[in-house]
């Protein structure tokens, strides 16, 4: 019951903040239109095929990444504005709190991914087939969980929002730009490939591409294996750091 109510709170907070919904949908839309139609002709001429097809899974992954990290980092606000204390003095374990919140954040982020998929559909994106669609949902859920837990871990060690800009510029943005969300990884300089291989989001983007447009760089087993393992690790790390929070 405690986990359910914590989950429910995250959902309610999301659909109540209309400005946040519009904001978090505006950005992927902008990226999709500006990059999709802007680079489309060049991409086509270079033999890459339809760029919107290639880009959409990357943009879906991006919107999930941003929202998931935000949901995790929201803990800082709860810490500052007292609400966290209310949950910490309740007769439940910190692990339950962490699980409830993370599931809530991840649900919201996954829903966002699905909405962006619809937007992409309007922009001309087409699935290669529906058979793999359930797996695409699994990938969205994994990316959501992974980065909500990541956000929770970060928020647990930070005391205020000062570091937030730093995290956006030096962590979240690089995670997105270096993940292969915008460009194919094949034929890149070696350094860039290595960086992309370290970036967890690469496997999420690649998994989505595999399940949505049937094109993959690493292959489905690698994507699924690495993403699941990392999600598991970060959930443990997030829980551990969350349990160490001192008010």
């Amino acid at each position, binding site marked *: 019951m405690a986990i359910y109510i914590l989950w429910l709170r995250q959902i309610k907070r999301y659909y109540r903040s209309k400005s946040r919904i519009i904001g978090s949908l505006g950005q992927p839309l902008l990226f999709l239109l500006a990059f999709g139609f802007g680079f489309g002709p060049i991409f086509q001429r270079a033999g890459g095929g339809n760029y919107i097809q290639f880009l959409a899974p990357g943009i879906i992954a991006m919107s999930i990444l941003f929202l998931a990290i935000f949901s995790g980092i929201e803990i800082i606000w709860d810490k500052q504005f007292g609400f966290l204390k*209310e949950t910490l003095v309740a007769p439940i*374990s910190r692990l339950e709190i962490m699980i409830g919140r993370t599931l809530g954040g991840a649900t919201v982020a996954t829903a966002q991914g699905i909405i962006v998929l619809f937007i992409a559909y309007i922009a001309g994106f087409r699935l290669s087939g529906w058979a793999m669609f359930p797996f695409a949902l699994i990938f969205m859920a994994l990316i959501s969980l992974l980065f909500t837990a990541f956000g929770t871990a970060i928020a647990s060690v930070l005391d205020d929002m000062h570091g937030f800009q730093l995290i956006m510029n030096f962590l979240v943005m690089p995670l997105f730009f270096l993940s292969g969300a915008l460009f194919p990884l094949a034929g890149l300089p070696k350094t860039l490939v290595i960086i992309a291989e370290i970036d967890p989001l690469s496997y999420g983007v690649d998994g989505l591409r595999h399940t949505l447009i049937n094109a993959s760089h690493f292959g489905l087993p690698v994507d699924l294996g690495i993403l699941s393992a990392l999600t598991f690790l970060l959930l443990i790390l997030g829980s551990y750091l969350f349990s160490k929070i001192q008010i």
Partner: protein
Amino acid sequence: MIDVKKLTKKFDNFTAVDDISFSVDKGTIFAFLGPNGAGKSTTIKMLTTLLNPTSGEIKLDGKDPVKEKNEVRKVFGIVFQDPSLDDELTAYENMEFHGALYGIRKAERTQKIEEILKYVELWNRKDELVKHYSGGMKRRLEIARGLLHHPKILFLDEPTLGLDPQTRNHIWEYIKSLNEKERITVFFTTHYMEEAEQMARKIAVIDHGKIIAQGTAEDLKKQTNTASLEKAFLELTGKEIRKEEASTAESMRMRRRMFRR
């Protein structure tokens, strides 16, 4: 109801709470006074399972906050110094959230929430988002929330801070009648000495981490040879203004206030 023996909390080289002992009898109102930075908050955090003591012993209703965290958490309700409501939820949802966290069943929860919200006169505004509430309404809601799970002890950390005299009076009426009718033990801190003088059966004064006096308001006045508790307090703790570094929470609070203007 509350028994504290030789309680100490050290942070690195700094001793925030230094070997304090006191007890609060069942069904009484107890005031815990002290200048800023004296160790009040640290003590409350230890009593309410948010912080583990360095040494010493605490018993709340016979239970140990270090070893039996969840048992102790069911025993008390708390109103924190800072508002700790979710502004994006309605009053009713805040209550629901609390009830569910404390494992109160749906049927009982529904009935109890109605009863308490009517008691603090917020029932007809239960579906408004808390962010539209005034400071006094928020405080009443927090008290209502703290009472939802039938606690035996109610902790109030500066419950009337920043409220006008009317609202303060109102809030103390609730607390007093709760104490009389339900026999709830009340532990509170305040900077308003007249509140302590009027409400508390017993008072403890803490300064620099040590309890420097305890007893009834009369005892403290006699001991210091003063006419009011305010004078007694100043006599005990000195007139010097305390230097205290603003914590991040405080600076955030300041910023939020400015943001709202």
